[in-house]
């Protein structure tokens, strides 16, 4: 990053700030100030309609942790995150290995796997809302004869939603894995082959270790995304059946805007989620780094 500046220093710095001003304005006005405000809200009595009613800390956090769906939603979100992350990483890597060689057929396959990623998450959820419905689904005969519905029981709803997410995101993770795979120099594989390593050995001893930076990035991305899941459950299950599929973000939304209308408590849950996320990501990065050494 240290390159000699040809222009006089002071003027250069001034110009730099000038070009960076729009970025700075957006970051301060729409990121830093809201971040400060959410902390303030979490410490204040703040109903949706009347606004700030003064400090009441730590009542909001107390109410948040003791909310009747708080523990359930945390457990469910973690369960969903583990399921989605494992499936997406394994399938992403599997698809990448499958279409790694470049050929016309493989390019076609890549495009097909990637196409659902162009669809918005809300659109994809709406698509599967119809696809899973007991009335309009093309799989209706199957549901009738086996006597189940895709969103009828807690487990079915979880797996059906996970299928939607895998369908929507597998291609995206495939691309990230492909980038990682292509970053591994070809002569490493040559060397493994000439040493008589089987395909399986090459995969476990060469490919996976060299793929670690990519695996770290995809894990962090996938865990973060899944912990913050909202649209898929909001549209597909509305938290049902029997409130079994409420995620943490859904809880924030419903506390803030549906019924309870308490922005203070919602802000408190948001702050808890933010802290949890920072800690989880720091732990993940540390785990990947320490394995490396």
């Amino acid at each position, binding site marked *: 990053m240290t*390159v000699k*500046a040809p*222009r006089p220093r002071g003027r*250069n*710095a001034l*110009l*730099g700030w*000038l*070009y*960076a*001003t*729009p*970025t700075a304005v*957006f*970051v301060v006005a*729409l*990121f830093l100030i*809201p971040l400060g*405000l959410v902390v303030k*809200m979490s410490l204040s009595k703040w109903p949706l309609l009347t*606004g700030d009613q003064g400090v009441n800390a730590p009542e909001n956090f107390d109410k948040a942790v003791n909310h009747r769906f708080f523990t359930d939603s945390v457990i469910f979100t973690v369960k969903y995150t583990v399921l989605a992350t494992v499936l997406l990483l394994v399938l992403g890597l599997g*698809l990448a290995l499958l279409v790694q*060689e*470049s*050929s016309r057929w493989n390019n*076609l396959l890549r495009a097909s*796997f990637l*196409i*659902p990623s*162009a*669809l*918005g*998450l*809300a*659109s994809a959820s*709406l*698509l*599967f*809302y*119809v696809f899973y419905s007991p*009335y*309009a689904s*093309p799989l209706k005969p199957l549901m009738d004869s086996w006597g189940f519905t895709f969103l009828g029981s807690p487990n079915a709803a979880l797996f059906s939603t996970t299928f939607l997410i895998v*369908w929507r995101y597998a291609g995206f993770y495939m*691309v990230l894995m492909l*980038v*990682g795979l292509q970053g591994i120099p070809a002569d490493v594989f040559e060397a493994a082959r000439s040493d008589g390593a089987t395909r399986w050995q090459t995969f476990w001893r060469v490919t996976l270790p060299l793929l670690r*930076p990519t695996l*770290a*990035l995809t894990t962090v991305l996938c865990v973060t995304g899944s912990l913050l899941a*909202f*649209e898929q459950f909001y549209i597909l299950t509305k938290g049902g059946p029997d409130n079994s599929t409420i995620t943490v973000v859904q809880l*924030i*939304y419903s506390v803030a805007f549906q019924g309870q209308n308490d*922005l203070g408590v*919602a*802000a408190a849950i*948001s702050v808890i*989620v*933010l802290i949890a996320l920072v800690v989880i990501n720091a732990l993940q990065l540390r785990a990947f780094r320490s394995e490396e050494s």
Partner: protein
Amino acid sequence: MAVDSRSTSTVATEEAPASKGVTRSRGMSFYGVALRMPYWVFTGALALIFLAPLLWTAVASFSPHAGTNQTDGWGFGNYETLTNYQAGVWRYLANSAFVSLLCTALTLVISFFGGYAFARFRFPGKNALFLLTLAILMVPYATLLIPLYVLLNEVGLENSLVGVALVLTMFQLPFSTFLMRISFEAVPRELDEAATVDGCSSFGALWRVLLPAVKPGLVTVGLFAFLAAWNDFFAPLILINDTEKMTLPLAVSNLRGQVQGVVDYGATEAGVVVLALPCMVLFLLLQRHYVRGFMSGALKG
């Protein structure tokens, strides 16, 4: 994320010649074809799983189904329902287009200047500002939208599409600033230095010399900003509460269960098709940029 940047940068160039060699040698022999058959069947079936829901929705939106506006014969009945729903699909399309285009324009301008500043200048607070911009990625959507709802109300942008576009632009900044910074850094410094020596101002050099050089980066940033804004659901859900001002994803989602709790699945399918169409067209037109955006950017830094 320290991926070996030497090898990722060569990816795009290596790919094309390698592919030709592979297909040609395989196409030659009969035994080669027979051996590859199970592979083709397996991968073909896999591809079908990914394509089938999309194709099915497109077909089903035109097909007859009880409980929809298209009960007998094929036709546009479901799309008629969509046209007449509340403020009408045209209104929602216009709202979505407005938000998406404004967000794209703002993202392009801000990240173009920001990327230039971060790549070519040294100024106090530079690293802090860059890290802060990236930190937006670490903060959950919901955590920011709750205070943003309060703040936008305060400055008179409640229930406003401009407000939604501003918020979505902010969420685009980490990716777009990062990508534009590495796009500018990939351009040889001699290029704009020569221009300044020839008497161009820094803005003149940026506009005439650097803009053409970073165009691929701008296309990727613009494409992503447009798709993200077009598809976004959470921000308008929280920030918009007037049916006149809803964006299309919100309107289609609300479309379900309008008539006495009975869901009009046909109209929902039609809505999904209208939502998906621009995404598919953009994706197919710009697929190369889409993948190259990851290739050049995603793992470096």
